[in-house]
């Protein structure tokens, strides 16, 4: 009889959460994202002003006690617009990445698992889609669907999906070779069982990491579409849209480009760092009973 694994060995390993919290960068990231999420959800209670209320007596005013971040060309409160803009930015990037994964993952899984002509067919379309620059594809799709935030999310989701398909295909092909997949076949598992119980759970980690890393890209893509007038439509507030206004009034009020620009950069940094954290978090060695 082999000795049972010593219980100390298990206790000595610190919990994943504790390891994560020891990293200062991770703490700052999580704190920022928590704050952002709170602002995005509670913008209507937190914002000092109505984000679409015009005040033509106070246009392009710099920061003041009444307007901490100043006002825009129509006298709207920049801070309130920034807060209201957080929701569309954050939730649409999450939605776009989820959509991209929902489209790309099944195709990549099938291509990698079944191989043969299924793989060839999916591979061709994936290659073709990848040869469109992402934002170009998104602009094309947004142009067809019409200009709205929902359509921008769909456009970004479609544009990002071939990346997921290719990644999923590669990891599926690697996992398919694992002995435990063959072992499961030996106990009578059929293709669907193998895919859902063995291949997918073990191939999904890179996908989740990729999703985390893509959140930042999706955020910037959504901001780009809104900046170009293909996403959130005025007068609704969005960070990209605010930058579009700032561009027009750049000579008279250059300070208008800072609040939404910094918000975008900080959020994208936080999302990217979240992706890195996901990579460490999802290492299968960190699972424990």
């Amino acid at each position: 009889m082999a000795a049972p694994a010593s219980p100390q060995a298990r206790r000595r390993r610190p919990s994943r959460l504790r390891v994560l919290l020891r990293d200062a960068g991770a703490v700052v990231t999580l704190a920022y994202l928590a704050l952002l999420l709170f602002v995005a959800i509670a913008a209507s209670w937190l914002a000092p002003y109505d984000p679409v209320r015009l005040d033509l007596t106070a246009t392009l005013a710099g920061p003041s006690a009444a307007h901490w971040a100043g006002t825009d060309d129509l006298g709207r409160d920049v801070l309130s617009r920034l807060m209201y803009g957080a929701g569309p930015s954050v939730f649409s990037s999450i939605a776009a990445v989820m959509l991209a994964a929902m489209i790309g993952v099944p195709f990549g899984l099938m291509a990698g698992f079944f191989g043969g002509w299924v793989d060839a067919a999916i591979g061709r379309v994936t290659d073709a889609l990848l040869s469109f620059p992402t934002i170009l594809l998104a602009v094309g799709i947004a142009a067809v669907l019409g200009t709205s935030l929902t359509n921008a999310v769909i456009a970004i989701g479609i544009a990002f999906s071939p990346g997921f398909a290719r990644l999923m295909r590669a990891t599926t092909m690697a996992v398919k070779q694992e002995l435990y997949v063959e072992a499961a076949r030996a106990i009578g598992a059929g293709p669907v069982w193998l895919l859902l119980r063995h291949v997918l759970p073990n191939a999904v980690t890179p996908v989740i990491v990729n999703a985390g890393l893509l959140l930042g890209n999706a955020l910037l893509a959504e901001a780009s579409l809104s900046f170009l007038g293909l996403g959130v439509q005025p007068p609704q507030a969005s960070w990209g849209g605010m930058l579009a206004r700032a561009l027009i009034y750049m000579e008279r009020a250059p300070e208008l480009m800072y609040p939404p620009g910094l918000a975008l950069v900080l959020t994208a940094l936080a999302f990217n760092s979240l992706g890195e954290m996901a990579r460490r978090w999802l290492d299968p060695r960190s699972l424990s009973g």
Partner: protein
Amino acid sequence: MSAPAARTTAAADPIIRVQALKIHFPVRGSDETIKAVDGVSFAVAAGETLGVIGESGSGKSTLGRALVGLIAPSAGTVEQRGEDIFALPARELRRRRRDFQIIFQDPHAALNPRRRVLASVREPLDIAREGGTAERQARALVMLERVGIGAEQAERYPHELSGGQKQRVNIARALVLRPSILVADEATSALDVSIQADILNLYLELQAEFGLTYVCITHDLAVAMHISDRIAVMYLGRFMEYGPTAAISRAPLHPYTKALLSAEPVALPSRFAQDARIVLQGEIPSPIAPPSGCRFRTRCPIAADRCAAEEPAWREAAPGHWIACHFAVSDA
């Protein structure tokens, strides 16, 4: 003779019967094939243990996988209880798998790292939809208990168990559906020597308890001799010698078997140690283009011109004792 005789070489009513089995793999970017198994015939009687011995690259693992229907043959048949398993529709083959199970060499790689071992052991029952969830859970726990894994360890993930414990889990998983045939592919060679003996004894206990028929694939002669009733010696996709364990250990006929036995350091009768050690020269040749005539001739100490020109017949040198060699003769 292109393939060994399709005549089988064991008991009258075998549970496993393999006939003229060939498994060739295509080589990427080439018209050539790897001839992993290249014409093998044998049978195993119910309740017996067949040991298949070979170096790495002999095709023994491929043979093991074919026995349990994991690799389809290029030619020939594998019959379990008189039925050609590769002639069955895919769905039917999956249903029959419960009767023939396999244990792999690497106990860690054979377990899904994201499932608790109890879930892995319960999985065959889940797939077969046997009984309710609670019943499956209970049966899996009983089987784990039988192989020496307690309820507390059952709740762990594979990486939290030792190699020997993991192999016990794999055994429980293979036996939970009560198969009649168990193929063990180097099932102890990845383990520490001290644990190997425990696991081997577990195999023997379980064989008696469940009436199992074993095919034990190994490169380790001592292991094969310890647990087998009959032994087959495999080289480059072919059997070189096949016969009762006692006969082969006492009087091996094929030069390859003799070489393997003489290289064995311990656990063999002392008179082998007195013989001059036969040292095999060189590496095992490529299974893409095996040597002409006798495959073993490039490393054989007694090879002659005839061995390159003519393939040796698969002949019965003594009752139940078969060899493929032009020169070897029975002393009996």
